């Protein structure tokens, strides 16, 4: 389970933006699945594939549980740079199929 949380942010979902992303391996289907539990009131499920060099994980939208009234997360890419550094690219689909991209460069806090 990977929990996206800014360092030092209190865990209070009522007051702070606190989406939770879960990664799990679907053993029966032999695939990696990501679910993003979002404050938009839904949990899009994405199916992942790993790059040949093993450094990039890319997830494509599979299906959605919950409402699509406010849009949903659609795509994500995790790129491992080294043990202390990775990047994340997220694409959110707003109502009307308008994508919003966010790039995060995350380094381990010392």
């Amino acid at each position: 389970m990977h929990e996206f949380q800014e360092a030092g942010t209190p865990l209070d979902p009522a007051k702070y933006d606190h989406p939770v992303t879960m990664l799990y391996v679907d053993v029966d289907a032999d695939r990696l699945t990501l679910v993003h539990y979002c404050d938009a009131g839904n949990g899009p499920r994405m199916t992942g594939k790993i790059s040949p060099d093993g450094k990039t994980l890319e997830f494509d939208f599979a299906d959605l549980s919950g409402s699509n009234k406010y849009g949903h997360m659609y795509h994500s890419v995790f790129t491992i740079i080294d043990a202390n550094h990775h990047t994340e690219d997220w694409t959110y689909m707003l109502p009307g199929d308008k994508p919003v991209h966010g790039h995060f460069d995350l380094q381990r806090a010392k």
Partner: protein
Amino acid sequence: MDREWNDSQPIYRQLRDRVVAMILDGVLKEGDPLPSVRNVASEYRVNPLTVLKGYQQLVDEGLVESKRGLGMFINTGARNLLLQGERQRFLAEEWPRVHASIQRLGLTPEELDCCRKTQVVIGWRTVENRGSRSAAKRSAKAMACIEARGLRKAFGTTIAVDGINLRVEGGPHPRTHRAPTGRARPQRSMRFCASPHIRLS
């Protein structure tokens, strides 16, 4: 901006609504830059993508313009656009309900007019009127009536002026007035409240 969020809708929508309120209130003026995504995310402890989503909504609505390398700016005409939208929404969604209630209750234009806030404060030869012009005239007539009756006797009574009942309320005024003799005299204050429908104060 408030740092509290509610559960009624996603944070990016609430963020969008707060910027809209700031534009309508004139806090953010046309041509003003929006705070950077990074700053808002850090200050309000939200995911930068959440801020981006809120800002993108404003761009899609034509309220904000993104200038490459410079940031986002309030568009010219954004306030008018919002007002136009809000007026249309009021007329389409709220007014029919209000109008139906007015019809159902059989309220007249005069009764609706008298619901506007009317406040008269009588101090030491000081009169302050707030409200419509007709309300001010009514208050002036009421004052003359009260003075004829005597201030002390008027408190707690109801005076009919132009077919409208005004209830006279009074109490010590928070301020004091220094009378010509040099002695501090307490002021009296009164509020004229239309009745019976709505208590105005």
